[in-house]
């Protein structure tokens, strides 16, 4: 077993975790990560089972990998609940998060994306994440919950604080807790400001109405807002960065998209499979279970390594080949089943619009690899800086 060394808290690991995941799939697919005291599942079949068997692999108490997360991050998020409680809350948001429900904001997203890109076109250089991708998802979420423009930078900064990990930092640190506290305090003020008035059909209206009618408790509403600020923001930013990077690595495939923008949606599915921005999804063991000879006990924490599952050679032919025409429909980049990412259609929409506008303007961008920088977190994986010239 000495060949396997999975360490989602090791900064170096984030640059190219795929060979390590392959070694784990081949040699020790149900891996116990000693420093953090949790399991890591790496095979598609095992991860898929954990997603589907929601009574054995539960979400209650599984907000993060860290053992102290429930004490340090106390607001209940519906992502950390199970049916029927989970179903009740998720249902409030699902209708507006369908492709049809989101279609009315596509033009708005497009104008925002164009406004972020245009000022840089003449300069011949920009940072695709720091100048664009970090702003757009926060702008979209802010618009949905009425966070004013002037507050967006600090809300995004707190979300960054919450996820940032020092090298090999296995426990939640002061910066993480302070980011969380700042977000919670901000959204407490925000909900006090809008609690009596917001009743529209946007996300804020849905939350405030749910609170007023008792469909959600006040802490659940705050938890949902924190979740939006993190999940709706960090992962889409990183997905856009990962796509920019992979298309640059495969210029002939990038050219196919320049020539046929209608293929961008299919290409996004391959980026999600090949290099999704969510590395690990968390569960707790709800009842003792044996997997591949390992005994997982009730209460154990489990990380579902979806970026490993999506490269499983038993599931995908040539899994390490990036092919924008592959069109796999069963990757688990957004999870799978009842807890599957509620914002998946929004992430797809934002990413599609960005690349439609980006490739129209700067089809042949070159990445300066020496300037690439990463966010470091066990769950979210992607760049903070992708400097390009064109």
């Amino acid at each position, binding site marked *: 077993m000495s060949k396997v060394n999975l360490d989602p808290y090791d900064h170096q690991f984030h640059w190219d975790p795929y060979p390590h995941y392959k070694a784990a799939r081949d040699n020790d697919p149900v891996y116990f990560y000693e420093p953090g005291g949790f399991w890591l599942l790496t095979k598609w079949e095992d991860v898929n089972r954990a997603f589907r068997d929601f009574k054995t692999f539960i979400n209650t108490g599984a907000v993060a990998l860290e053992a102290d997360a429930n004490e340090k991050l106390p607001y209940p998020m519906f992502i950390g609940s199970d049916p029927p409680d989970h179903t009740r809350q998720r249902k409030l948001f699902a209708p507006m998060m369908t*492709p*049809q429900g989101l279609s009315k904001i596509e033009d708005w997203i497009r104008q925002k994306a164009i406004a972020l890109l245009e000022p840089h076109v003449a300069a011949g250089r920009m940072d695709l994440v720091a100048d664009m991708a970090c702003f757009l998802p926060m702008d979209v979420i802010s618009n949905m919950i009425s966070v004013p423009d002037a507050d967006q930078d600090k809300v995004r900064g707190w979300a960054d604080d919450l996820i940032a990990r020092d090298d090999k930092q296995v426990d939640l640190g002061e910066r993480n807790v302070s980011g969380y506290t700042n977000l919670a305090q901000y959204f407490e003020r925000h909900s006090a400001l809008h609690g009596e008035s917001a009743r529209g059909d946007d996300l804020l209206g849905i939350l405030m109405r749910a609170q007023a009618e008792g469909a959600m408790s006040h802490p659940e509403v705050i938890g949902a807002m924190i979740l939006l600020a993190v999940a709706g923001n960090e992962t889409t930013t990183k997905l856009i960065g990962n796509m920019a990077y992979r298309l640059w690595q495969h210029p002939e495939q990038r050219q196919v998209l320049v020539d046929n923008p209608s293929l961008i949606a299919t290409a996004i599915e391959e980026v999600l499979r090949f290099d999704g921005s969510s590395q690990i999804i968390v569960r707790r063991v709800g009842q003792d279970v044996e997997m591949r000879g390992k005994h997982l006990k009730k209460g154990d924490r489990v990380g579902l390594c979806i970026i490993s599952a999506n490269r499983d050679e038993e599931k995908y032919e040539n899994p390490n080949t990036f092919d924008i025409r592959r069109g796999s*429909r069963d990757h688990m980049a957004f999870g799978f089943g009842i807890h599957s990412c509620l914002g*998946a259609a929004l992430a797809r929409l934002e990413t599609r619009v960005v690349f439609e506008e980006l490739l129209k303007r700067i089809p042949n961008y070159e990445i300066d690899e020496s300037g690439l920088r990463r966010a470091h977190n066990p769950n979210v994986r992607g760049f903070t800086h992708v400097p390009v010239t064109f």
Partner: protein
Amino acid sequence: MVAITFIEHDGTKHTVDAAVGTSLMEAATTNMLPGIVGMCGGICSCATCHCYLPESWQGKTQPAGPGEQSMLEAVYEPRANSRLGCQVAITEAMDGLEVLLPKEQV
């Protein structure tokens, strides 16, 4: 609660108690029934909760909206009575409903 019966392609029947207000997809997946996947969790994005609603029950549900109709173009063996389970909300009037499932979902 109302009783909903899901019938697999091979005729195997599964009857579950479902809460009014939940969807047919949720009734199936929260009971971990075979034959329905529900990959996207109900945001009308994956077309893996495809089912056939008997004609006699069609008047008891809201018709498919444009988003659902567009996703139904991608399912295996679509029929005139095809629906996505995630878009069919369960009502009191559906007690006793029998839902047929297709041979494949993906």
